[in-house]
């Protein structure tokens, strides 16, 4: 024992201390990347925590008044502090921000632009900002991947792990990679919504009466108009004379990548970006809840079998027998005016309902694999030397069903996005002003045959694309972790997707 052994199991800290250079290089890179976006990160963190704290406070007080930073309910101080954090984050310098690369300005009589980044036309300023954001995002992901490679080549003690095979298979899985890229684009759209949209949602929809737009009128004078009025005048109403299509400017020198919406107008891209945020929020929360329940019951039923299994089968069958849409309609009526319905205009409520309704499908998907693992002799072996049941489930069973949760989870998020859009389309989903893609489709469906076809068409296509990408990603993960299944098991995944779609 006195001699240090060659094959000694050394803690990672000591391994890094022995050869600090690669790790230091990577850490410095990471810090630089984070510092570039420090303000955005801090303020996003503040927003997320504020939301979380508000939900907790709401749960205790049951009134919406507990949520606002100004109210005097116990705990509101926390919300106020987090709000302060968010404001502080906004004051921090952020490289890739709309302040640094502005796209809003007015044309000058000399033919140039005033107020935009380097005097570029708004379209180019906006495109440049979006490009930088996505470049940053992909570079950041690559840097994380690079960190993993650094760990493998410099610090990992095993020269091969089963994960290596998964990575190797994923590296050649083009369909899965296609899905991953689209999903990253979608996540980026939601995550950086305030930065990638041509105009903030606050200015465009929430408080358009408090913002003004400067533009060059026909006589060569710089005029000022309220945002609300400008939106109204540039709204797309199906008739070619009052329509702003994709990739075009309106009369007030504003660029609309996806065109404008119908009454009361506004930028469609902004709507889509903030809508992505809402979809992502609902999808992730619902998926988190049902994934957790599914994993918990999956392990429990597979380990104890018998009666516990029967009980969960009965409960899950009962839940699956509930008509989802009818229940959602019921819930949205019952919870009208309830504090839970305040968040995202019912978005949180939907997330909870979907989370509590969709776990049986996920549980059924992991039940088979969980039973299979529980029959492995290593589970018996763990019992034979007295390993506790919780640890056995966590260590010897959970790793084998996590992959399946990921697969079916990604399919399920797609299903939830479709469901929420469908509900919003029907007018019982998320109500204005919170943006939701399905509502854009509903609003624009009267204009499909007119010049303003883009209002319904673009959101519709994007929904299809994102859901397809999530399915592709799920396929990729499945082929990565479970090569035997290949793509022959599409029946199961289709069923899951269909189940998710309600």
């Amino acid at each position: 024992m006195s001699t240090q052994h060659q094959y000694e199991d050394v803690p990672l800290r000591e391994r890094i201390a022995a050869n600090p250079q690669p790790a230091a290089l990577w850490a410095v890179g990471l810090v630089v990347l984070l510092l570039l976006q420090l303000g955005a990160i801090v303020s996003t963190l503040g927003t997320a925590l504020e939301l979380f704290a508000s939900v907790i406070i709401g749960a205790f007080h049951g009134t919406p008044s507990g949520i606002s930073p100004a109210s005097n309910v116990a705990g509101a101080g926390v919300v106020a502090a987090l709000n302060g954090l968010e404001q502080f984050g906004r004051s921090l310098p952020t490289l890739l921000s709309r302040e640094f690369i502005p796209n809003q300005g007015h044309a000058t009589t000399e033919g140039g632009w005033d107020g935009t980044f380097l005097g570029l036309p708004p379209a180019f300023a906006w495109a440049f900002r979006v490009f930088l954001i996505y470049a940053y995002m992909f570079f950041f992901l690559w840097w994380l991947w690079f960190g993993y490679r650094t760990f493998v080549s410099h610090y990992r003690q095993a020269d091969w792990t089963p994960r290596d095979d998964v990575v190797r298979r994923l590296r050649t899985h083009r369909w899965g990679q296609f899905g991953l890229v689209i999903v990253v684009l979608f996540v980026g759209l939601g995550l950086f919504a305030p930065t990638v949209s041509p105009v903030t949602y606050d200015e465009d929809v929430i408080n358009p009466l408090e913002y003004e737009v400067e533009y060059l009128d026909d006589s060569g004078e710089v005029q000022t108009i309220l945002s609300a009025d400008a939106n109204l005048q540039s709204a797309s109403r199906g008739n070619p004379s009052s329509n702003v299509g994709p990739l075009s400017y309106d009369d007030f020198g504003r660029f609309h990548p996806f065109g404008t919406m119908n009454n009361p107008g506004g930028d469609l891209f902004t709507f889509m970006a903030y809508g992505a945020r809402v979809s992502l929020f609902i999808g992730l929360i619902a998926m988190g809840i049902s994934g957790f329940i599914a994993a918990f019951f999956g392990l429990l039923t597979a380990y104890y079998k018998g009666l516990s299994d029967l009980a969960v089968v009965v409960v899950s069958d009962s839940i699956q027998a509930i008509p989802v849409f009818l229940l959602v309609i019921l819930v949205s009526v019952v919870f009208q005016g309830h504090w839970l319905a305040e968040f995202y205009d019912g978005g949180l409520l939907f997330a909870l309902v979907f989370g509590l309704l969709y776990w049986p499908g996920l549980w059924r998907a992991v039940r088979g694999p969980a039973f299979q693992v529980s029959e492995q002799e290593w589970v018996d072996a763990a019992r034979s030397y007295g390993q506790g049941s919780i640890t056995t489930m966590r260590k010897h069973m959970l790793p084998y069903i996590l992959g399946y949760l990921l697969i079916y989870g990604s399919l399920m998020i797609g299903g939830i996005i479709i469901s929420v859009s469908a509900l919003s389309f029907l007018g019982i989903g998320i109500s204005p002003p919170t943006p939701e893609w399905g509502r854009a489709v509903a609003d624009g469906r009267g204009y499909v045959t007119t010049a303003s076809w883009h209002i319904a068409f673009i959101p519709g296509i994007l929904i299809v694309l994102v859901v397809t990408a999530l399915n592709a990603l799920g396929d990729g993960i499945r082929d990565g972790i479970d090569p035997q299944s290949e793509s022959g098991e599409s029946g199961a995944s289709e069923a899951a997707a269909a189940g998710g779609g309600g």
Partner: protein
Amino acid sequence: MSETEELRRTERTDGRRDLVNVNGLKTYYEGGGLINSQPVKAVDGVDFHIERGETLGLVGESGCGKTTLGRTLVRLERATDGEVLFDGDDITTFSGKRVKRWRRDAQIVFQDPESSLNDRMTIGEIIQEPLNVHDWPDLDVDVVGTQKQVEVTGDGSVNQDEREADITVEVPGGAVTVRDGVPLPEDRVSVDVTESDSTVTVRVDVDVARKRLRRARVRELLTTVGLREEHYFRYPHQFSGGQRQRIGIARALALEPEFVVLDEPVSALDVSVQAKILNLLEDLQEEFGLTYLFIAHDLSVVRHICDRVAVMYLGHIMEIGDSEELFENPKNPYTQSLLSAIPETDPTDDKQRITLRGTPPSPRDPPQGCPFSTRCPVKIHPSEYEHLDEKTWEGIELFREILRERQRADRSFTERARAILGMETRFSGIDEIVREVFPHRLTQEREQALDRAVEAAASNREDEAREILGTNFDPSETDADFDDLVDSFISDVHAGSHGQARSRIRERFGEMDVPGEVRGDVDRAVEHVRDGDEQAARELLREEFGSVCDTEPPDHHSVSQSGRTSYCHRHLAEHEEPEVAFERQS
């Protein structure tokens, strides 16, 4: 304290030779069905003991309950009844902490090396896991050389159990010895002894972390089982079956058990690797004084490695005793049948192979008497039928077995309904069964006619063959059934299978070729079946042809000087011994 300790030790090592004592052990699996579920009687009352340091082999066909028995001994299954004494304590009554403590003493090596190691953990983690679970090493301390009350402080604790303490401190002086199994250099242990009038306080400080000791222990184990230390960070996928089995053995040995159940440890391996693993197991037994229960279906392996052997059939131990003796001179009919199945390497040897008919009965519904009674080639027959020939007996037993099977087969609701309505079910057709089971015979003229018909058909005079059959067998019968029979007869002859063609006719028109008294009983049984009362048919046959084998479970008779026992009625004085019966048959 130390006196009682001494006493305990003495009793343990000298007083009891047996490490494991199994008495009347039963392990039943509950049936899955909601209605009328019979438990599967996997282990149905076994008694045996395993001596300290010996290897007891457990052999039997697959499904006979040997794996369940092994798993029950390490408490992977709960015993339904009976006791398992481990070192004198009944482990089936242990619970909670006591089970966990005891698990260190009894470990199991699994059959399938592919499935017994978690693929997502490194070899180091796999072998280390049992050590982590039990927070190994205890660092318990024995203080010798004093009669006073002993107190231990610091990292150590007073040795509470019957195992050898990890650290032994000699008083006075404080000389330290560390047990061999713990990779702790003695100079890393510092001891501080303070003595008062009535107590000795020993402060033990170990300046090596337990985690490091465990890792060192894992590396030691790797070399012990013939692997290398650099395998520590590899994953199970990177190993061959033999190497994986070595890892499983290392894991079982990690906690220094006394008793290891080896559940077919080599049957999944190549023959060349098997020998290596068996040698390793023998070496380890010698090195660590292990006691093995070696479960196998490969008899030659068992003969090679085991001191004693138990032969299992349908949840019962049929014969148990000294390995060499049992293989040389088996006493129980089942053992004899089993051993006769070993291929003989000597071609001049004219040993007779005993082929067992049928399959083992379902453990859900084992026979009432001897478990082997449905297949035993030397089953005791009632004295009034002693004269019947072998073929007839075979027919009778087969007939009884078919009736038993029919009773056991699940009848669906539709089938029950059909039976009530008098329609045909898949359980009907008793005549065909009787025809197939018992030999049949034609009268002499008919036999000659049959010869002529075969000859005619073989030389393509088909019309003539039809004519012969028609006139000699059933001139009045001109229905389609008979025509079909003749058609298949001719096609059989054309296909060259004359024997089958003949037996078709014989079975259809012949008389049952059994002595008259037997025939009467069979006919009566058939009548019962036709009336739908199979229960009565089975009872009739049992009363008429059954013997003590069908009704009474046998005793474990001692059959040799060395205490070998055999579970068979034939060892009673009033019956012939099994080998005599076998001899008479051949």
